[in-house]
């Protein structure tokens, strides 16, 4: 006979789980007791939100399923933001929550919260386990659902008695699972693929618009191969950055609200848009009617519901990006250049590069460029949300997929620091940097406790402007500089780090930047750098909300 708690731990190990991020409490005591002697590693975070983000960071950096664990009620509720973040960015995590015993369900028992009800709209699927006998099957299903098709978070709610009840161990795990309502499409429709290839071969001004789906299906190499053979420029979304090396001649960087001018111009003038693993989000398209107005649109996505949701598509192809790109590559009978179009793009690139004032003041763009030079595309860069995120997206030179983790869809401040912890455990040999704002860092600053406790060697570069910078920027541009509740007092972050036993320093001038970053990289343990940047630096260029993407402000005169 085996208890539910034992089945759970065994089930996780059967799924290949090595590490979970969690926080204990009353109803998960039986599970924690089981973990006490298990080889399954558990990291005690300082807030459950961080457990969810760490699981997410682990998943994004590794391509495997991340796991977090929390107690019922407040513990489970604290996971919610992290689950929603993973949901919006299609990240495979399994969230385990304790629940009050089944006989108390629905009674407003102590620390009861209807977490399956609460997370219904932000999970790919969720389960309330009613009987221990179902648990083995549910674990198997949960991992299968989380990692296949369009990946996403799955939650399993475990009443205390389900964990303590023992069942016949020979029946604990089914050999196979069948989900008759879940059959994700992998291979694309052959006719549609042929049609797409024909269109691509005949287009004059094609452009690839690549997103997070390319990263999550590990299709980056295929994407680059395809683009090179056909001479097609590539622009990526925030989530798609790193699928093509930043310095690749065909790379146009990010498009959309804070994208490059040349990417947005190229989209606007293109005659064929090849959208791969993207969802035509409003931050990308601006005014959707004027997005790629002259283009025939091919849309490749694993989720049929994304096709035609925001923009009408001419050639939909449902399936896994990698498998479809491979099929498309197989059909290319010749490679071809597109000199005129690429020449026009080179011209835009030369005339409209990203730029910032290089006047010796400590500017965030400079810091990011220096970090980029030091790491040379190795390592994992994580960001928080706001200006710090956009500057990183614009100025960091990404060279490898899964080297860039950020909360794109939900835009969760506080994501970066705990996600960096997860990223470290996924790839322990690599340098992990969280590029933060002073506002965002304070949203999960308590995780200094975790990184100190386990000596997790993540480095935090705070671009400290003593503002909620991105909001301040909008107030400056659109609210007549009325800085309503966006100023933050100066915090001595190095001292706070020191109090936790973490090394840190403050940097106030340009020449200190490289030494500070080098010190952080060379330190074995965690490190916090408090960069006092130009306070009112803005992210430019910018497409005002609701404008067409080629109507950018703060760019070059045309």
């Amino acid at each position, binding site marked *: 006979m085996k208890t539910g708690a034992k089945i759970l731990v065994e089930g996780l190990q059967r799924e290949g789980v090595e590490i979970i991020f969690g926080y204990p409490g009353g109803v998960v005591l039986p599970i924690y007791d089981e973990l006490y002697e298990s080889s399954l590693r558990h990291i005690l975070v300082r807030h459950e939100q961080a457990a969810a983000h760490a699981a997410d960071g682990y998943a994004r950096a590794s391509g495997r399923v991340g796991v977090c664990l929390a107690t019922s009620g407040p513990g489970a509720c604290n996971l919610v933001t992290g689950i929603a973040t993973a949901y919006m960015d299609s990240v495979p995590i399994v969230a385990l929550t304790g629940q009050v015993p089944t006989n108390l369900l629905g009674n407003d028992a102590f620390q009861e919260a209807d977490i*399956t*009800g609460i997370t*219904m*709209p932000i999970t*790919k*699927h969720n389960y*309330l386990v009613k009987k221990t006998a179902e648990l083995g099957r549910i674990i198997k299903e949960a991992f299968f*659902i989380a990692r296949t098709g369009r990946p996403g978070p799955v939650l399993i709610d475990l009443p205390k008695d389900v964990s303590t009840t023992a069942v016949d161990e020979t029946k604990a795990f089914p050999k196979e699972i069948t*989900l*008759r*309502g*879940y059959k994700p499409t992998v291979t694309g429709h052959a006719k549609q693929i042929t049609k797409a290839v024909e269109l691509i071969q005949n287009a004059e001004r094609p452009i690839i618009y690549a997103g997070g789906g390319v990263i999550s299906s590990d299709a980056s190499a295929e994407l680059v191969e395809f683009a090179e053979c056909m001479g097609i420029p590539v622009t990526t979304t925030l989530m798609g950055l790193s699928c093509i090396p930043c310095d690749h001649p065909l790379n146009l960087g990010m498009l959309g609200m804070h994208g490059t001018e040349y990417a947005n111009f190229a989209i606007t003038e293109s005659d064929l848009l090849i959208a791969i693993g993207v969802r035509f989000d409003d931050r990308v398209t601006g005014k959707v009617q004027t997005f790629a107005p002259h283009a025939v649109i091919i849309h490749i996505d694993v*989720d*049929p*519901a994304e096709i*035609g*949701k925001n923009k009408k598509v001419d050639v939909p192809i449902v399936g896994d990006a990698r498998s479809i790109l491979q099929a498309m590559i197989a059909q290319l009978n010749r490679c071809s250049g597109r000199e005129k179009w690429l020449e026009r793009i080179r011209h835009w690139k030369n005339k409209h590069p990203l730029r910032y004032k290089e006047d010796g003041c400590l500017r965030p763009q400079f810091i990011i460029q220096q970090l980029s030079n030091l790491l040379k595309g190795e390592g994992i860069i994580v960001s928080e949300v706001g200006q710090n995120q956009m500057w990183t997206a614009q100025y960091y030179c990404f060279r490898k997929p899964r080297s860039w983790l950020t909360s794109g869809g939900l835009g969760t401040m506080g994501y970066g620091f705990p996600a960096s912890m997860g990223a470290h455990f996924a790839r322990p040999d690599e340098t992990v940097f969280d590029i933060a704002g002073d506002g965002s860092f304070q949203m999960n600053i308590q995780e200094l406790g975790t990184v100190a406790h386990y000596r997790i060697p993540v480095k935090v570069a705070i671009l400290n402007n003593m503002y909620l910078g991105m909001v301040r920027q909008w107030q400056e541009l659109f609210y007549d500089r009325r800085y309503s509740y966006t100023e933050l007092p100066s915090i001595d972050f190095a001292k706070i780090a020191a109090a936790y036993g973490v090394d840190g320093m403050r940097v106030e001038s340009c020449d200190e930047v490289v030494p500070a970053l080098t010190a952080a990289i060379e330190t074995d343990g965690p490190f916090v750098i408090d960069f006092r940047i130009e306070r009112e630096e803005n992210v430019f260029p910018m497409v005002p909300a609701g404008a067409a993407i080629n109507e950018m402000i703060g760019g070059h005169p045309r």
Partner: protein
Amino acid sequence: MKAHTLSVLVENKAGVLSRVAGLFSRRGFNIESLAVGTCEEPTMSRMTIVVFADDAQIEQVQKQLNKLIDVIKVSDITDIETVDRELALIKVNAEPGTGRSEVMQIAGIFRAQIVDVGAKTLVLEVTGDTVKIDALEKLLRQYGVKELLRTGKIAMLRGAKTVKSEK
């Protein structure tokens, strides 16, 4: 915009109805009616959902429904030959002398059953398609409808074809 009828086969499990209902409210889809019950296969239930939507919206509704793990199959049967039925209970003012016999006559014409006779009211039970029930309701309004209950439409394909999961 028009009324679409969806026949949806789902797992017969706790929480399925709230997953479906939650999806509709969250995405701002307009449910006209929803009828759900067990079906020929005990592990499944069948829902008949009537939604007001244009072509793009109904496509999204179906795709989003299909994303729910507990939804096994979604079919838009709006433009297919179906038998569709609703049941309504209507409590109408019908005092002896003032309209009771007229109401009973109307009931007869519509093949509605009189299932309860009160001192001042009659309760009619009627089944039929939506148009028929709408018509009856409209006629009875002039006598004063005190209470009205409709089950929402259920619909089945005519002939040998069925809405089944492809297994």
